[in-house]
């Protein structure tokens, strides 16, 4: 259940660093496994699921059922991995899902732009101008993806506990970055505790419920707290008692659920009950 998430850009040696950290800590390094498990659960080709993570949604595709379905499954697979194993998660999906869990160390690895451009030129045998354009496009796509799927800028350093610029370290030496991550992860403040484990369980249960309901209720949002489940839906009317009851019964079948409440749009509910509009972290 110890978790380190590593978010990277292309040519930042992120994968190698993640694997070395996992090896040193005795954790499992997870990245592509998430895609494979999701594709298997959905019975769809791996590439299709991969595109959900890699390509930013277009205006039309953003609302496609398939994309929402894949993302819900990916989130659930990642959350279950994080709940059940000691892992180093290398990829885009991990960090935004587990915000608020104190024992998760969130790392971002960056490199100097000029070094990345040089590597792109060498690898793809393209001009500097072309390489610069490719890198800029890839970075922009990632930013768009984060904004579209989670409403956050995944490059924002405020979202991470540790930002490492490998450009400041030796050219072929990842060891400094690995040591920094391992030392930070060993700090007492990143120790698991009952509160953080409960947070993780809440997230995993929310994800499982979203997966169970995604085909019938693609627009719902689920928040759990120790078996108490709040479901927010823009389309479901509380007045429609029959539909609400059916939804509650469906959710009650899921292991770990003790109580269910169904609400309209989340912000509207918060405005009415709490008297303010919650500010989302960005």
């Amino acid at each position, binding site marked *: 259940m110890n978790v380190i998430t590593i978010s990277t850009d292309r040519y930042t040696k992120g994968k190698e660093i993640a694997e070395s950290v996992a090896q040193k800590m005795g954790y499992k390094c997870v990245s592509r496994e998430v895609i494979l498990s999701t594709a298997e659960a959905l019975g769809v080709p791996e590439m299709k699921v991969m595109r959900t993570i890699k390509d930013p949604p277009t205006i039309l595709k953003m609302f496609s059922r398939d994309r929402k379905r894949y993302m819900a499954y990916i989130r659930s697979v990642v959350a279950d991995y994080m709940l059940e194993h000691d892992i180093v998660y290398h990829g885009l999906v991990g960090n935004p899902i587990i915000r608020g869990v104190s024992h998760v160390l969130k790392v971002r690895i960056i490199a100097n732009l000029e070094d990345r451009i040089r590597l792109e030129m060498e690898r793809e045998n393209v001009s500097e101008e072309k390489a610069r354009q490719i890198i800029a496009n890839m970075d922009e796509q990632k930013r768009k993806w984060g904004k579209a799927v989670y409403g956050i800028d995944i490059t924002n350093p405020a979202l991470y506990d540790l930002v490492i610029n490998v450009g400041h370290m030796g050219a072929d030496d990842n060891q400094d970055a690995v040591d920094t991550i391992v030392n930070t992860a060993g*700090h*007492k*403040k*990143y120790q698991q*505790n*009952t509160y953080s484990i409960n*947070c993780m369980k809440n997230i995993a249960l929310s994800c499982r419920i979203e997966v169970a309901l995604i085909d019938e209720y693609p627009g719902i949002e689920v928040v759990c707290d120790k078996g108490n489940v709040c479901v927010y839906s823009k389309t479901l009317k509380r007045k429609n008692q029959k539909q609400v009851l059916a939804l509650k019964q469906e959710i009650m079948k899921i292991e770990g659920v003790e109580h269910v409440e169904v609400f309209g749009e989340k912000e509207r509910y918060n405005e009415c009950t709490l008297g303010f509009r919650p500010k989302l972290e960005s």
Partner: protein
Amino acid sequence: MKEKLDLLLVDDETIVLQRLKPALTKIGCTVETFGDAKEALRRIDEKVFDIVVTDIMMADVNGIELLEYIQKKSNRTKVIMITGYATEALAREAMGKGAFDIIAKPFRPDDLRNMIARAAAALGFKEKIRV
């Protein structure tokens, strides 16, 4: 080795003390309760407790200050934090300063009993606590 765990319970909500004291006595702890953290500090000066369970948000002296004080007095005492205002930052602060565990209110007495059983095991009391 002592027969019973000496446990100090600090919370400015009387109802919490009233509800938790019997639940913890039942599992074999000798429980002292304080609604005023300043009085709890005075008692900590007099006696080394095995486990301290403390609220965080309290007037005058908060749970983090209490934790720091206990850490200076005895590194053997296990401190369990309970709070109605749990956040990622608060959990990290408490754990970073040496808390044994932290849990958000409301919680079930069994949740706290489990935490105490783990703390007791860490102190070598494994066989004495019946959860």
